[in-house]
């Protein structure tokens, strides 16, 4: 064997060190700075609650009127009482179920349709105009139709959520198809990859960053629509419950409902964000 040349080669290329992973300022360092940076998000929240408390405590009337608005303590009590009841938890569960079904369906359809449109001229010609016509219609305007169309309001609400959530994912996926570096596809096909393999090994993983940014937008609009739809036509759900509280003049309940929606929205967005980071940890901006 001709190994002399091989031997001469260092096992590890010495001339080129791997790029050192960027050194991040470690959070444990500098006690005071760490405490400050950790408490930073708390400050405005505490401030907002304090202002809210003062405005409602003293029934401030200065063009906007705070005299009928419940204070943070009232809301806290209402929330505590509600969280104990099975009924309220049932409302939370049914909202979550609706949003997750609508969102899951929208993600699946959005990615498939987006890839189809982005990669096939025929599919694009077929579907693009239809999508562009349907897209500007606010999902909530479909409530009357949904009531007429679906046997139960449950299915109608899932449909509305789906309708709202599907477009951001679709558009993000279409866009991702156009920004994938061609060299990935070229490399794969010279290595013998077939169309299907290119789709699953190159296109899909390569499009994930864009798909996830579409998903987080979708999650936001999905919440708007599920809550609005519940307020209009639901028999369960946090949106319905919030609206009922208003009808029953339980204003603390209204705010408790709002905060519950906020917390659920925050949690789902956070989950998407976490998942996205995991899937896309190869991006240059993500530390390993």
């Amino acid at each position, binding site marked *: 064997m001709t190994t002399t040349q091989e031997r001469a080669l260092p096992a590890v290329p010495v001339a080129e060190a791997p790029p050192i992973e960027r050194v991040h300022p470690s959070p444990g360092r500098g006690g005071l700075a760490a405490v400050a940076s950790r408490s930073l998000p708390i400050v405005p929240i505490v401030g907002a609650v304090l202002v809210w408390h003062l405005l409602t405590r003293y029934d401030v009337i200065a063009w906007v009127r705070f005299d009928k608005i419940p204070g943070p303590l009232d809301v806290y009590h209402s929330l505590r009482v509600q969280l104990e009841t099975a009924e309220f938890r049932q409302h939370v569960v049914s909202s979550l179920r609706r949003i997750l079904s609508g969102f899951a369906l929208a993600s699946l359809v959005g990615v498939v349709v987006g890839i189809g449109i982005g990669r096939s001229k025929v599919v694009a010609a077929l579907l693009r105009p239809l999508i562009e016509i349907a897209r500007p219609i606010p999902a909530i305007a479909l409530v009357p139709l949904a009531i007429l169309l679906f046997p139960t309001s449950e299915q109608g609400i899932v449909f509305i959520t789906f309708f709202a959530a599907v477009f951001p994912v679709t558009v993000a996926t279409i866009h991702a198809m156009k920004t994938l570096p061609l060299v990935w596809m070229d*490399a794969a096909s010279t290595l013998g990859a077939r169309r299907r393999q290119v789709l699953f090994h190159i296109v899909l993983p390569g499009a994930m960053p864009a798909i996830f940014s579409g998903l987080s937008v979708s999650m936001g609009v999905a919440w708007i629509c599920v809550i609005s739809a519940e307020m209009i036509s639901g028999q369960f759900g946090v949106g319905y419950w919030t609206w009922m509280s208003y009808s029953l003049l339980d204003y603390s309940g209204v705010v408790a409902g709002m905060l519950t929606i906020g917390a659920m929205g925050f949690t789902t967005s956070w989950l998407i964000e976490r998942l996205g980071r995991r899937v896309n940890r190869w991006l240059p901006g993500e530390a390993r």
Partner: protein
Amino acid sequence: MSSAAVATTDAGAPVDLDNIRIDYPDGPAAQIDLKVDPGEIVMLLGPSGCGKSTILRALAGLQPIAAGAARIDGLVHNGPEAHCAMVFQEDALLPWRTARRNVEFALAMRGVPRRERKQLALALLDQVGLTPFADHLPKQLSGGMRQRVQLARTLAAEPRVLLMDEPFGALDAQTRLDMQELLVSVWQQRRTTVLFVTHDVEEALLLADRVVVLTPRPARVARIVAVARPRDPDAQLHPEFALQGKEILALLGHGQFPSH
């Protein structure tokens, strides 16, 4: 030479570019007639934008051949096939896969069973000197190391013709020398036919058996220079090296400084 020990299936295939023409939408890109022997290293050299990369892309099946025929091992070649694998200048690695998983991708595409892939991938990475970096993502590797992974991945396809499109063009001089040595050592073990596009005259003379100098677009063969001492480490010390370099530069239109 030791090449007798190499398995025949792995050894290079002859390439016959029988008067092929490749077109761009706005006109012809290249018109080439060239025969390459099995296991030969041929460098394509030409002014930038002349269409030299297009020739490789056509051989890789990424670009249609408008006229003529490209025969590899006597068989007319059309469409991407694994026995013509390509090393690209740009970052062609899949950034979400580690070095090892990038190589495994090529093995999977070749149909290597799943449980054999890891072992083979590690062996290939070892061959390009990257064993310690097998589990690094491309973003954690330097440019030269990424090109090593690309070379390992391309070798994983067991190509009989290795197409290299300015693979070291973006590297610094030191790293490029390392990579050239690596390529020669790999070639000595495998005797793959290599078609290599470069714009670096010195690189061409260091690596090639023959240097094909191309004309400006559409690329045609201007001259074929048989290198006096192919891959001789001391080649640069001999006057032929400088003379051939000057000859090639003259063909490319850089014969003299504008002294008048």
